[in-house]
């Protein structure tokens, strides 16, 4: 059935020109916001890279493998900081991942009545709102005394293991790791919980209907279905841990060295920047920018790896 000309014009006129203009205007506006965010990222990377250029030309890849940070001779290398960044975040992840996912499981299943569960969920999320300088102070006054005693015992008993081979003096890599673990715990717990809660209830029913127990359902259906969300949360947390500055600087000891012992002092890229940026000039600033650029790249690599893991697993299950 053909439409009459009249009907065709009616279809065309159904919405006023103003409504249509607003519509396309809105699409443009949101599009520009999206592009804008991406451009800010690119702009920061370019700027940091540009400022780092003199140091990149001077030291090249040797910057990544040298442990010398010598403002007097103007020779710089950031290996201890790269090492410290990776190790402190890894400690944090190893502690926070099992606890955070455990908390997420506990708070997403119906173990607790709603009235108790809700406030706990809220409090876990509130952990993320504590300023990092407060974490740092708490680390110095509360965490260090506790951890030092445990560290002394570990060193006395298991000192032959390289990880525990020095006597803890107070601040150190292990304190930074634990503080970071507490700081990223709410990120992992909250995002993992959202991912678990978002798993369609039909899958749970299907699993129970096939005679799976609660734990089989949890480990074989719910967790795999929430896997990509959980990995996303872990990556976000890892990024936060690697970039965290204030708390780390306050408890890591800021020593420019690499020691396999977790009880020794160290530094991270972020703590290096915080410590030196104010008084730096010339090639030293450029080297700090180079270090920042490296941090940028490490974060990028971690995210790409995470994406690959998620894809790999999604193809398998």
């Amino acid at each position, binding site marked *: 059935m053909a439409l009459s000309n009249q009907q065709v014009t009616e279809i065309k006129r159904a919405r006023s020109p103003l409504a249509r203009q607003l519509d396309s205007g809105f699409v443009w506006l949101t599009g520009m916001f999206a592009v804008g965010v991406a451009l800010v990222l690119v702009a920061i990377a370019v700027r940091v890279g540009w400022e780092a250029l003199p140091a990149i030309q001077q030291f090249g890849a040797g910057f990544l493998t040298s442990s010398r940070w010598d403002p007097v001779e103007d020779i710089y290398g950031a290996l201890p900081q790269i090492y410290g960044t990776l190790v402190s975040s890894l400690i944090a992840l190893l502690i926070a991942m099992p606890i955070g996912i455990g908390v997420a499981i506990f708070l997403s299943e*119906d173990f607790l009545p709603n009235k108790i569960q809700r406030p706990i969920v809220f409090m876990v999320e509130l952990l993320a709102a504590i300023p990092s300088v407060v974490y740092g102070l708490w680390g110095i006054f509360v965490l260090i005394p506790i951890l030092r005693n445990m560290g002394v015992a570990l060193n006395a008993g298991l000192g032959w293991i390289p990880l525990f081979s020095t006597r803890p003096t107070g601040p150190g890599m292990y304190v930074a790791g634990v503080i970071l673990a507490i700081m990223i715990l709410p990120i992992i717990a909250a995002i993992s919980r959202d991912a678990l809660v978002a798993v*369609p209830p*039909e*899958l749970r*029913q*299907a*699993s*129970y*209907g*096939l*005679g*799976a*127990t609660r734990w*089989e359902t949890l480990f*074989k*259906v719910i967790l*795999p*279905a929430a896997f990509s969300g959980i990995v996303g949360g872990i990556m976000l947390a890892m990024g936060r841990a690697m970039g965290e500055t204030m708390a780390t600087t306050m408890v890591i000891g800021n020593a420019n060295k690499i020691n396999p012992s977790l009880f020794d002092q160290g530094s991270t890229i972020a703590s290096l920047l915080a410590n030196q940026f104010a008084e730096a000039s010339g090639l030293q600033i450029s080297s700090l920018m180079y270090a920042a650029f490296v941090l940028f790249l490490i974060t990028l690599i971690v995210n790409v790896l995470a994406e690959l893991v998620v894809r790999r697993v999604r193809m398998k*299950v």
Partner: protein
Amino acid sequence: MLAKTDTVIHTNDLNIYYGDFLAVRDVSIAIPNNAITAFIGPSGCGKSTVLRCFNRLNDLIKSFRLRGNVQYHGQNLYAPEVDPVEVRRRIGMVFQKPNPFPKSIYDNIAFGPRLVGYKGNMDELVERSLRGAALWDEVKDKLKESGTALSGGQQQRLCIARTIAMQPDVILMDEPCSALDPISTLKVEDLLQELKEKYTIIIVTHNMQQASRSSDYTAFFNVEQTPKGRTGYIVEYDRTEVIFQSPKEQATQAYVSGRFG
């Protein structure tokens, strides 16, 4: 009576509550072996509720309570020594909305058998189950692909295959065709006729033709308003021909002929 009785599930004055709310009352029904029994009736009259009592899936609902008893081959399903997990392995369920796991087709089928530590040849079991659900020819070349990538009708047959891979005794189906197109619906109906050779099937359906075409027995449910809410009950239960051609109750007659409400 024989150990494996002609009656598979038998309920006696079953009353089902959600909290204080009496959802279904006075259900007394005997489900015969190797036959298809249909539950029909308006929405909210408790068909799903009764069905889910038969494999103890209602246990997952905290407010659920039950009075009366459900016998499965003479064994009280709600006796304290009965393990609901074991019950669900024998009494499988297909849901209204197809719910394949976000895993490969193969792993969807193998999920249940792996839970019970199936020792036989898994590839064979997967093939047999998919053939049993009339899905093998359509998916045999893509067993590694995700079950969620199939069409709705294929997903539902995958769910049926997944259920029969457990080699259950009874299959409960809660409006298995309500989310499917007419052609997929016919495929599932054909499948029902094959399945009843081996299994006892109870199917909830809103589709009168489906009930009259496919089932051997039909229970007609209705609801009545009580001070505490709308309570469902079975109006009439008989052979399907009787329910559709010469029901005893006026309400049944009105419902099956479409003059209801």
